[in-house]
């Protein structure tokens, strides 16, 4: 198995989007945001320069989790919520692979919430794409852990009574080393985020706002419509002051004495008080404050890379422990085993 211990370094292979399309018929509802994400991923993949056989997509259960069937790479469609756990075992034992997890808001945050936060705190070398449509698609429209309070669905005819998770706040609470958000409809932005995620060593958590046109249509319209999006969206750029709005009329500041960040009118703020985005801030508190900016009406929604810091991956730490132990050992494995069996208190009968 030559090459199994090598890291997933890009090697020169010329592939095209077509190479990443599998022969399976795509079966999402017409108009589903998942199509756009699939196309964006398929056309981005060649950029990685990684041969298809070294790429694996692991998913849970949900509409979004059908994703691996459509990628002409290795793929594992697993069980509800468990993809991060399964992918952890794969990634840790196969450092030569590029392992991607595709999950939904129910899959990742309800049934699989535990695995998600633990993968993130361990910093497993996984690229986790959470397709957030704020609804259970596959089971036909129940509210999800990202649905807004009071959401009326099949299972909540008079409105849901539980407050939603903010997926990015959750990931940051788990001290994820790479946290980003993007939108299904903006292919260029989506691909720029995927690119940054792919380059990150450790867990990269990407929330993708995805429209479920059947059960939660228009959930992100304000972020997409030409008339509103510029005033609603904050496009984060590393090293740039955070201003937004059609005419840059809004900005983000850190009010003295406050805990978090707030949005102000640019005109009312001295330019050196505008926060300059730095994804590399070691303390997750800054990115957390960014994640708290949007209101329920989706105003002030940052997209882009919130946080990107360097911390050894779990894979690397585990791998180096095993390698260090192997390096110290002498003799063939059989000889070592014989030595181990006869270690401790033994006695011999002749």
């Amino acid at each position: 198995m030559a090459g199994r211990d090598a890291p997933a370094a890009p090697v020169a292979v010329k592939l095209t989007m077509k190479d990443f399309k599998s022969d399976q018929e795509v079966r999402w509802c017409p108009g589903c945001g998942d199509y756009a994400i699939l196309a964006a991923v398929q056309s981005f993949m060649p950029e990685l320069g990684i041969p298809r056989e070294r790429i694996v997509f692991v998913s849970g259960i949900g509409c979004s989790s059908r994703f691996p069937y459509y990628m002409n790479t290795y793929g594992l469609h697993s069980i509800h919520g468990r993809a991060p756990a399964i992918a952890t075992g794969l990634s840790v034992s196969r450092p030569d692979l590029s392992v991607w997890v595709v999950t939904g808001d129910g899959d990742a945050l309800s049934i699989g919430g535990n695995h998600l936060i633990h993968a993130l705190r361990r910093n497993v070398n996984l690229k986790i794409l959470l397709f957030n449509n704020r609804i259970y698609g596959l089971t036909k429209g129940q509210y999800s852990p990202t649905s807004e309070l009071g959401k009326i669905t099949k299972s909540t005819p008079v409105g849901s009574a539980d407050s939603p998770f903010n997926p990015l706040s959750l990931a940051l609470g788990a001290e994820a080393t790479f946290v980003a958000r993007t939108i299904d409809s903006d292919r260029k932005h989506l691909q720029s985020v995927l690119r940054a995620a792919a380059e990150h060593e450790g867990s990269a958590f990407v929330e993708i706002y995805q429209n479920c046109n059947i059960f939660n249509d228009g959930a992100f319209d304000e972020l997409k419509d030409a008339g509103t999006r510029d005033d609603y969206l904050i496009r984060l750029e590393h090293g740039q002051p955070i201003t937004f709005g059609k005419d840059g009329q809004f900005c983000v500041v850190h009010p003295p004495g406050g805990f978090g960040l707030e949005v102000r009118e640019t005109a009312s703020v001295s330019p050196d008080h505008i926060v300059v985005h730095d994804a590399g801030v070691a303390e997750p508190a800054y990115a957390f404050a960014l994640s708290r900016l949007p209101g329920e009406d989706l105003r002030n929604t940052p997209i882009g890379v919130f946080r990107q810091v360097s911390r050894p991956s779990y894979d690397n730490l585990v791998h180096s422990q095993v390698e260090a132990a192997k390096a110290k050992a002498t003799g063939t494995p059989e000889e070592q085993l014989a030595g181990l069996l006869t270690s401790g208190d033994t006695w011999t009968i002749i």
Partner: protein
Amino acid sequence: MTKQVRQLDRVVIRFAGDSGDGMQLTGDRFTSETAQLGNDISTLPNFPAEIRAPAGTLPGVSSFQVHFADYDILTPGDAPNVLVAMNPAALKANLGDLPRGAAIIVNTDEFTKRNLAKVGYSVSPLEDGSLDGYSVHPVGLTSMTVGALADHDVSKKDAERAKNMFALGLLSWMYSRPYESTITFLERKFAARPELVGANIAAFKAGWNFGETTEDFAVRYEVKPAKMAPGTYRNITGNAALALGIIASAVRSKLPVFLGAYPITPASDILHELSKHKRFGVTTMQAEDEIAAIGAALGAAYGGALGITTTSGPGVALKGETISLAVALELPLVIVDVQRAGPSTGMPTKTEQADLNMALFGRHGEAPVAVIAPKSPSDCFHAIIEASRIALTHRTPVILLSDNYVANGSEPWLLPDVESLPDLTVEFASAPNGEDGTTFLPYLRDPETLARPWAIPGTAGLEHRIGGLEKADKTGDISYDPANHDFMVRTRAARIEAIQVPDVEVEDPDGEARVLVLGWGSTYGPIGAACRALRQRGHSVAQAHLRHLAPLPGNLGEVLKSYDRVVIPEMNLGQLAHVVRARYLVDAIPYNKVRGLPFTAAELESMLEDVVKNG
């Protein structure tokens, strides 16, 4: 003073004290000394789940029983010949198991009014004549230990704590045990605190010398070495043997091992042990829960490792959905269930065999897996290698059912020659297998084993997608075709039935038996001992023991039908008996006890005698 030396063929000693008295360690050391001497041994630790139950109370009693003999033995012994009772609670909790005439060594220092009251003695049993039928040796274990350590630079508390070494020294003298290994052990254990090395060795020697000088112990005993097959031995617990067997599986398969586990009694020791042996390419992961533990193991198996997860019953319940996924994916996976008394948290440190139903049937859909059970501590080594073999060659989950009794009990183990262990190497798929020479069919099967190719990521040209949705035969594409589903369900069942397992062997020395005792797993020892005892008394009885519970041995039906009566003792309410009745239409007689303790040979003997005599 020269003491009389008496020869014995077998002895059962039980060390009992408070959880904090170090009885497990004392028992372990005595066992180790005994092993050095070449006696056959079997041990039974019995301890509470609480780390420190209130001192001096009945729930806080911890004990360790060791049975040693000059011939081969099968159980830790039904009844102790000697009880070491470190306090009134230990005496009270264990007295009921002692036959009249047994020796009791009591630590009189602990028989204070307060301690007696804690366990409901209004008068000391040492004074009210209630122990008249026993041979009682009152010894001031604590005070004599403290006295012996007067010149040592240790605190009073540390001196008192060394009383277990005094007791060990006394017993080692009584049974003429070689004690060098204990001295070395103490030197290693307390290497960081040399003053404790000295104190513990001094306490041990004080106990030994006390035996030699006091008139209370007039006789010293010897038990000659057992006649055992030539070779090198070590004493081994079931959990340690499982860990070694997993390492052996790594070596013999030339595959990396990935162990995912979440701590749970009585399985955690396997994780602890394996985490020390990374040099064999063993990766251990303490996962966030049992579902993640098996998930990670399955992910590693998908990537070409030998994936293993170790747990106890509650953990297996959580893993059920992932085991079903592994059935659908047809990937190798080994699941170790060290059974404990349930349901729910039950009695976590006590033994039971009540997870057989769960192992055989406890999943959604038709999800058959292979099931295998070791019969003794050392057999765990070979059983897990067998589980790995089945998993790897047949690409299936395999559940290994150990239990607390084999996991923590110990026996001498004749160390195998590494080269004699089975070759577990398997081949990964490396090229397309379709007729056109370019397509890859992930569900095209080996005609003999019905196993599908193990095509691991990284292999160019074999990119494919698999998952839990039903797959079309051969192509593995998603399929909702009714006939295909029916075919795949039957094929998954046939795959398990296609696993080659050896015929079950019957031990029926005179060939006259009309009654067969059938067991599985850890009941082997007590059943075997009961059968021996019956035969010695002139009765005929046959014994068969199942290692493979799925698939069952091919000859089992025939074996069962060739006896008039079949008796099935189990530490559950008749789970194997149920299977046997359903599958072979044999009117088996179940014999069931669920007390958290192994069967005694005596109770099985009297039950079987009744069946043999009265049918």
